[in-house]
């Protein structure tokens, strides 16, 4: 993705194309999961595409982005290749986290994607730390911190909001409210009528936006980020969205009705942006079909790439625990044959 100049808007057809890539990627991930090519947990973003796409369209490439475990789309939106994302799901060394992170822990330093965090709300203080660093260094970046509606009742979330408000940090807290924390609806988890009211308790300006509408998300975040760049402060955005699939691959989502799902499907973010662009004469059906075909091809190629990619060799197992290598903790798997044993003497030798 090319670097954006201030005030410049990303091409909407390009962003529609990104939404298609995300959807096709997730569909393919689902299929590969069922084929047991992907292990662990796998949480899909289908239905929520307009949220992260709208967000990245509103910020600069060097702004910081961090999210929770439903993170495939955030990496793709930041410019991580479908190859690196799929390879990560396959646990391969070519993955965006070398196959050490998995579905819930996508990282891409070069594209300013700071994870991929799987303990609910535990990354919200991290995001505040990143925003702290921006202010500490006197930069004009902004941190976008995504999380689900399930995060807002965790202590870490509350502590983080308070710190961000107290220190006036440049951060947008983006709550992707898809109505369910796993199987528990917001109504059953949260005492407030609307999530955005959480922000008020910390004197943080909060707004609600329709997360099924790409343009609305983009324009609102652009407006907020613009204000933050002028004078550093936190902001809160409740983005109302919906996931079509279950919480994870193992969830049949029997806690909600077919009618509810159908209602949201009719409001599909991709269909909606497509209709807007078509109506305005910016996109033909043929062009759309071509974009979709390309997205499918990219994802299919990513599966092939992931399949033929190597795994990290077992000898490398201890290289990613400490910066100074396996030896920092006195670990010598080859000599001791134990999981985490070793000697400082060996440590000295290898230094």
């Amino acid at each position, binding site marked *: 993705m090319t670097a954006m100049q201030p005030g410049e808007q990303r091409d909407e057809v390009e962003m529609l194309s990104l939404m298609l890539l995300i959807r096709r990627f997730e569909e393919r991930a689902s299929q590969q999961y069922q084929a047991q090519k992907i292990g662990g947990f796998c949480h899909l973003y289908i239905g929520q595409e307009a949220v992260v796409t709208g967000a990245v369209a509103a910020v600069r490439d060097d702004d910081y982005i961090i999210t929770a475990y439903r993170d495939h789309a955030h990496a793709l939106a930041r410019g991580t290749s479908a190859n690196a994302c799929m390879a990560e799901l396959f646990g391969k060394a070519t993955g965006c986290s070398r196959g050490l992170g998995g579905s819930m822990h996508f990282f891409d330093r070069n594209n300013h994607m700071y994870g991929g965090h799987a303990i609910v709300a535990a990354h919200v203080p991290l995001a505040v730390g*990143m925003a702290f660093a921006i202010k500490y260094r006197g930069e004009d970046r902004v941190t976008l911190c995504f999380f689900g509606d399930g995060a807002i009742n965790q202590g870490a979330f509350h502590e983080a909001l308070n710190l961000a408000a107290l220190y006036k940090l440049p951060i947008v807290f983006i709550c992707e409210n898809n109505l369910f924390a796993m199987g528990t609806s917001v109504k059953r988890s949260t005492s407030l009528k609307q999530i955005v009211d959480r922000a008020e308790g910390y004197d943080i300006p909060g707004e609600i936006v329709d997360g099924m509408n790409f343009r609305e998300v983009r324009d609102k975040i652009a407006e907020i980020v613009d204000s933050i760049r002028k004078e550093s402060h936190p902001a809160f955005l409740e983005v109302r969205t919906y996931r079509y699939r279950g919480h994870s691959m193992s969830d049949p989502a029997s806690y909600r009705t077919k009618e509810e799902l159908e209602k949201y499907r009719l409001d599909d973010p991709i269909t909606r942006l497509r209709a807007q662009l078509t109506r305005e004469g910016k996109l033909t059906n043929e062009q759309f079909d071509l974009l979709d075909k390309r997205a499918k091809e990219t994802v299919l190629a990513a599966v092939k790439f992931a399949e033929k990619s190597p795994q990290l060799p077992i000898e490398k197992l201890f290289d990613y625990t400490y910066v100074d290598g396996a030896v920092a*903790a006195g670990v010598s798997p080859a000599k001791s044959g134990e999981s985490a044993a070793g000697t400082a003497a060996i440590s000295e030798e290898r230094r």
Partner: protein
Amino acid sequence: MREITYRQALNEALAEELERDPDVFLMGEEVAEYQGAYKVSHGLLQRFGPTRVIDTPISENGFAGLGVGAAMVGLRPIIEFMTFSFSLVAFDQVVNNAPNMFTMSGGQFNIAVTFRGPNGPAHQLGATHSHATENFYASVPGLKVCTPATPRDAKGLLKTAVRDDNPVLVLEAELLYSSKGMVEPPDEELLIPLGKADVKREGSDVSVICYAQTVPLALKVASQLEEEDISAEIVDLRSIKPLDEKAIFDSVAKTHRVVIVEQDHPFCGVGAEVCYRIQKNIFDALDAPIIRVSQEDVPMPYNERLEHAVLPNAEKLIAAVKQVCYA
């Protein structure tokens, strides 16, 4: 060399590292305007200003996580816990985020954060405020843990910790803040490597392996034992992880008898790990079973007499030494 307190030594280390590297900042409860709950950060706000020395609300999970996040984008935070007993509120940040990030990101994000503060039982603070956390944290891959016992070690280890690219916990000894010791003058750079033990007193009959608050205890006991013709070698681990196996084995090879005196609990304590490694690696050097002296396996009572009974103390240590020496 001049004599300063453990507290002053830590203060000097903080000041020198703040001075040296603009990416270093100090954050925690009461570190700035109050000048530190234990006055370790005395004068630092005045010298470095509120951008570098930052007070937080009582919000350990929040500010520990803030430190990890700031480290993700290249800063080198020093996060003070008023006591490591309070770090338990931030356990998720210290255990799940700080050490896992480097692995989970495939080596893209290292977390150069220092968590520091007093650790271990102090005096009649009761169960919640008396935790010795070294064995919890040392069991987590990705963390480094050091436990200085003297002013010199406190200064040298803290400075090294701040410069380390991994998350390091500097577990200070609450009861030793006012203790004194000889330290190099401030214009002499003092860096003590992590993972290097230090023989605090040479001896030939028994190795007493200790760290943090048990070091002065062991030294005191060694003097008493000398009068009874028992020569104890005092090995201060200084770092729990990395663990200096070589120093331990060298001492054991010389004395053939071992007592480990630790400030944590006995079950899965630091001594259990040290003990395992000794018997596995130099079993034949041992002339007697190893004995551990630790806290008793109970939450800390407030009552002074009972507290004394729970803690490792001189009587227990002397008895243990005599037992391994068959004296």
